[in-house]
């Protein structure tokens, strides 16, 4: 049963050091506010799951929150590398990062298996690829009818999933639309789910067959306007492409990154405060 609460309270209540956690959202609706709050609360030793680590996990990895990462594509889309992710994998900074690497098709199938309470997923994947050689979790299975050999991979069932959505009603029923990625699966596969939303409404007014998550599959709902920034929320604000490009400079160097985290996350009280500080940083960049 969903409870409305502050994001800070939700993270404190449901996220303990050492748990497995997924913050999902495929380019769209990435729950950045929640990622910042995990950094702000100094969470450690998290087993991260996310198809595309993106800037959100680059920040968390660089800030030392993670001990492992399950993922399928780890770049800054359209820009280049995720420097903090690379630094962790290549040099173990700030702490070593164990990786569990899969393909998009595999990991999205694994989310489906998790939501369906199956222990594994079956797909036509990886043939000829070296990935099964370096990831012993990628196995084969024979079809009991045709004898055909297919790929089997374990389901994903994290302790906590966090997503960002456009709307929730007072009971905590959640509506999202546009690019919905694996968010429904990620919520249903998790033991606990936290949803941050752009707004609270009296009625969802969901179109037929929309992606709705009923309040009874969610633990906490948190009102965080612009909570997906610098990602976007369809119908609310656009993607801050400029920030994605600026991140390349901010994150390339350890000291610059640390200073950014200190100023923008550790020194801010919450995501509203971050947005004010970030807007100020932008003005300074623009006036240079």
């Amino acid at each position, binding site marked *: 049963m969903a409870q409305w609460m502050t994001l800070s309270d939700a993270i404190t209540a449901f996220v303990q050091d050492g748990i497995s956690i997924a913050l999902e959202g495929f380019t769209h609706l990435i729950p950045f506010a929640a990622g910042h709050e995990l950094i702000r609360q100094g969470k450690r030793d998290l087993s991260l799951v996310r198809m595309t680590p993106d800037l959100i996990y680059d920040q968390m990895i660089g800030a030392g929150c993670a001990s492992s990462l399950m993922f399928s594509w780890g770049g800054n889309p359209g820009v280049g590398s995720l420097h903090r992710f690379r630094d962790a994998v290549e040099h173990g900074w700030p702490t070593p990062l164990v990786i569990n690497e899969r393909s998009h098709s595999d990991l999205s*199938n694994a989310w489906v298996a998790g939501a369906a309470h199956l222990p594994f997923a079956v797909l036509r994947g990886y043939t000829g690829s070296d990935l099964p050689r370096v990831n012993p979790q990628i196995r084969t299975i024979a079809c009991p009818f045709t004898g055909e050999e297919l790929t089997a991979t374990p389901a994903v069932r994290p302790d906590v999933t966090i997503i960002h959505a456009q709307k929730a009603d007072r009971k905590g029923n959640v509506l999202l639309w546009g690019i919905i990625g694996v968010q429904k699966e990620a919520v249903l596969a998790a033991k606990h789910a936290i949803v941050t939303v752009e707004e609270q409404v009296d009625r969802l007014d969901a179109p037929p067959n929309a992606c709705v998550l009923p309040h009874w599959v969610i633990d906490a709902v948190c009102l965080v306007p612009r909570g997906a920034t610098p990602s976007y929320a369809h119908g609310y604000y656009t*993607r801050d492409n400029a920030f994605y490009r600026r991140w390349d400079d901010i994150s390339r160097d350890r000291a610059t990154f640390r200073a950014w985290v200190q100023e923008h996350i550790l020194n801010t009280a919450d995501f509203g405060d971050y947005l004010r500080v970030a807007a100020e940083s932008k003005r300074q960049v623009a006036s240079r």
Partner: protein
Amino acid sequence: MSLPEYTSDEMMTVSAARMLRNGAVCFVGIGLPSTAANLARLTHAPDVVLIYESGPIGAKPSHLPLSIGDSELAETADTVVSTPEVFRYWLQGGRVDVGFLGAAQIDRYANINTTVIGDYGSPTVRLPGAGGAPEISSNAKEVLLIVRQTLQTFVEKLDFVTSVGFLSGGDSRRAAGIRGDGPTAVITDLCILQPRLPDRELVVTTMHPGISRERIARSTSWDLHFAEDCGETTPPTEHELEVLRRLHCESAAAYAAGDGA
């Protein structure tokens, strides 16, 4: 009428776009593949169907998305499905005619690496990884690859096989039970390469105007062959260049947009 000026990247993108037939269902990676696919859609192939792995099916963006899941893709699509559905029903389901991919390394049999440079356990360079590539390369009916051609990208041996082309060549792909015809062309900034029968090694089939055999050979780590009838790539038309440059121009404006938000 003088021939229009153009860059080698423009030649590459235009060449790649021309490979897409009108009406083809195309699974598009971000970056160069997305640029080429949208150029095709805005020139000779208005009915090409673009599928992005984030969920949009039939996207018709007016500017190039910076990421694979920009709102422009969702807003212009015929429908937006979940990411698992894209991979399960549409790609694995056998509905994709052409997979359009890039790569950090490619070998003579068009196998590609987007995972690591160096050893997997202690890489020199950690690349972004597989994404959709392993299943695109094995489930799409055919694959087009776009890669800038250098000694670093065209290698004798991949550091890591992320996604397969023709494995060890000949019939080895089919023998491994992999669906689809595999890569039918590799488009670079220097030339177009295609698999030669029967060994399916990549050979140069056309060279871009002004590019010499020596230049191409010097940019390839293996002993590259040229097709007997190897000719010259048709240069970009004014119309192709105009559309491509407008796309880039509108995209640059969109990329900068976040700053003012």
